[in-house]
């Protein structure tokens, strides 16, 4: 089956998932991100690549950081950005997702940045556009349900490459709420393709999806064992708003067993970096002392996120990678 992200000649024209992207495509995106890094450092923080294009931010789920960084990225490419808060829009009045899309197409949209609580919603939009012959409109998945958050995955890869120089031989650990984490899935697919030596997921059994080993990861219930010799430690937010039923006794108990502390970090390599996709729950999945330490690269992640989103938008709009 044709990857819905690609056009007939195999060019990337939508970004739905890091799964299915080739190593060359991933590296091309990371290299392009690197070239955009300098733009944000200039006095004139704009280049004219997407001048005259309209980017619609369709956020069916709350987000501040992701929506803002997408908005900044589009504006630094000189696009016009229209933010739609779908929870207060026509969808709330009963309009279907695809009717909303059709209406925005009639407003001459060039790109949709979509966040949705349902896995697969951006894919549904791509299928609809393709069926109705509007495949020149690009779709970027900004997080769908538990499925994927590919731009976060890409900015994580960018951060790892920036601080570690590459991926070969790297041991990477993802800690905490893997079950609800679309970031974890996007990271795992990208790390696998880019050739990390090992990918470990660490957390309580209730927060680790069954059969996740099929993605080629090691599963650890024991934090100490999982952290041994790690180069990169990614703490994930405990997504309590998505938890239905008794998955956890309490946040305190989670912190006691899986919270990232300086003491536990000693088990990882001495030069290991600590990442977090945000927003952080200090004192739950990560200690304040760790989050504020020089090993934490959480704020560089945010800066790199803008460059990577500029890269994704310009690669899609420019005919693909």
């Amino acid at each position, binding site marked *: 089956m044709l990857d819905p992200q690609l056009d007939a000649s195999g060019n990337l024209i939508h970004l739905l998932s890091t799964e299915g992207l080739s190593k060359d495509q991933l590296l091309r995106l990371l*290299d392009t991100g690197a070239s955009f890094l300098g*733009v944000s450092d200039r006095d004139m923080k704009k280049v004219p690549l997407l001048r005259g294009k309209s980017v619609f931010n369709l956020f069916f789920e709350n987000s501040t950081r992701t929506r803002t960084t997408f908005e900044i990225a589009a504006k630094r490419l000189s696009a016009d950005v229209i933010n739609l808060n779908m929870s207060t829009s026509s969808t709330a009045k009963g309009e279907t997702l695809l009717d909303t899309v059709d209406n925005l197409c009639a407003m001459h949209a060039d790109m949709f940045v979509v966040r949705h609580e349902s896995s697969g919603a951006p894919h549904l939009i791509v299928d609809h556009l393709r069926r109705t012959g509007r495949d020149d409109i690009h779709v970027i998945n900004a997080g769908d349900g538990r499925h994927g958050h590919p731009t976060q995955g890409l900015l994580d890869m960018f951060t790892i490459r920036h601080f570690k120089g590459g991926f070969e031989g790297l041991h990477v650990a993802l800690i905490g709420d893997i079950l609800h984490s679309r970031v974890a899935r996007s990271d795992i697919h990208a790390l696998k393709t880019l050739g990390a030596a090992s990918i470990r997921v660490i957390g309580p059994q209730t927060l680790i999806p069954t059969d996740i080993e099929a993605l080629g990861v090691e599963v650890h219930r024991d934090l100490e064992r999982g952290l041994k010799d790690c180069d990169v430690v990614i703490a994930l937010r405990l997504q309590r708003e998505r938890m239905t039923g008794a998955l956890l006794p309490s946040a305190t108990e989670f912190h006691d067993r899986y919270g990232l502390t300086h003491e536990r970090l000693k088990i990882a390599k001495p030069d290991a970096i600590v990442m977090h996709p945000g927003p952080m729950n200090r004192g739950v999945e990560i200690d304040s002392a760790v989050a504020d330490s020089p090993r934490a690269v959480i704020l560089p992640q945010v800066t790199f996120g803008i460059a990577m989103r500029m890269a994704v938008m310009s690669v899609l709009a420019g005919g693909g990678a």
Partner: protein
Amino acid sequence: MPDPKQLPDAEQQIALLAEQLRPVFERAPETVLIGVFTGGVWIAERLSQWLPSHPPVGSVDISFYRDDFSERGLSPNVQPTSVPVDIAGKPVILVDDVLYTGRTTRAALNELFDYGRPQSVQLAVLADRGGRQLPVAADFCAWAVSLPDNANLVLTRTPVDDPKGRLTWSLDDA
């Protein structure tokens, strides 16, 4: 069309271009050299060595300013633009290897002005091959040559990563 086997020596042409530029830098020593990636940067670095005042060299990659982005997309290896000094109020010599349609020059000017408002900009090129599509002209030129549209005139450096590498011309039919 010249014989591809008997092209002029690019290194000698740079020396010639440096002689043309010398009075500019004597008159206004604060003048800045800005090369257009990739060949223009190589030439600008050479010119800075030839000129007595060794002026600072900047570089622009025009990939983000091209007028054919929507048709051709982004080139895979965008180099970082680096303007080492504040160009506002200073005379600038923009340096490129080949002047052809003039579109690169237009894009480079647009990018340059995002870094500041220079006092003036003049264009120095190693080769002017004709075929202009925009009202652009070189102020300094070492080699005027008329080439058909299908000809591909390229400046190469051997070895490519060596700043002292030898610059040579190659010419073929596209």
